């Protein structure tokens, strides 16, 4: 069997974010799209299962995010009978994480979604247009030892938007 292709990030110039916010290129993380197989994670939410983040990205579609072996373990446990399918989208999608207390305010510059805690709490997953790029936005707050959770969003978009999308998000962070 041929070796997996070497991953090359679409973000060629990951200039650090300005101010107090942090931008991280997480495109290398394995991403697998699952369609038609039932996973007990509702549309619009995400759930951590071990090392894998299971995102309910469409009414009958889920995205698995995590290390390759952990994602493979989750996929092997799915019932893929009937019309269910899995597709490895690691190389076709980028993933950027925006972290910081002002992350929501920064996103408001480029996104029409209501980012309040009432509408998009930690664990929410929404499809949205961010800086004119259609992407999945997952709120996945970062908890470090003993500290309060820091607001964090993951963006999944088509790979071809890579550097533009990074730069657009970076511009949003300039004020904070």
């Amino acid at each position, binding site marked *: 069997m041929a070796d997996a292709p070497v991953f090359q990030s679409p973000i060629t110039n990951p200039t650090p974010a300005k101010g107090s916010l942090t931008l991280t290129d997480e495109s290398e993380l394995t991403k697998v799209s699952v369609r038609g197989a039932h996973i007990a994670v*509702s*549309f*619009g*939410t995400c759930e951590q299962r071990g090392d894998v983040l299971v995102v309910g990205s*469409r*009414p009958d579609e889920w995205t698995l995010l995590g290390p390759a072996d952990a994602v493979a373990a989750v996929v092997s446990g799915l019932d893929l009978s009937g019309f269910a399918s899995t597709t490895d989208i690691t190389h076709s999608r980028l993933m950027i994480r925006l972290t910081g207390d002002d992350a929501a305010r920064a996103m408001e510059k480029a996104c*029409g*979604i*209501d980012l309040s805690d*009432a*509408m*998009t*709490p*930690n*664990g*929410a*997953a*929404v*499809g*949205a*247009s961010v800086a004119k790029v*259609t992407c999945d936005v997952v*709120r996945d707050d970062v908890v470090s030892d003993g500290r309060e959770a820091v607001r964090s969003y993951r963006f999944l978009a088509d790979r071809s938007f890579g550097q533009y999308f990074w730069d657009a998000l970076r511009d949003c962070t300039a004020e904070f």
Partner: protein
Amino acid sequence: MLLVPCPNCGPRSSQDLTYGGESHSRPDPKTATPEEWRTYLYLRDNPSGWLVETWYCSSGCRRWFKLERHTLTGELRDPILPGSKTGVASDEATNIQGGTK
């Protein structure tokens, strides 16, 4: 800008959706006359009042749905997914953005 209530995603900016136009039932191809096809393809009711429309949630759930829009006031109501028997305009349509489903 309109705030369009997607049955799956909740209220969204109309810029995040694609307008599909007036909703018409398709005539039976086996029995339809040329005039019925012409009416179906090209003629629109364009009423002053409530109108059933189709929309596509292109940035969110990527599903087509129908709703009613008042062409005078811009009010929107009763979003419904294909195959559903009733509108879901109440709690489910307005409160399920993100994790509150």
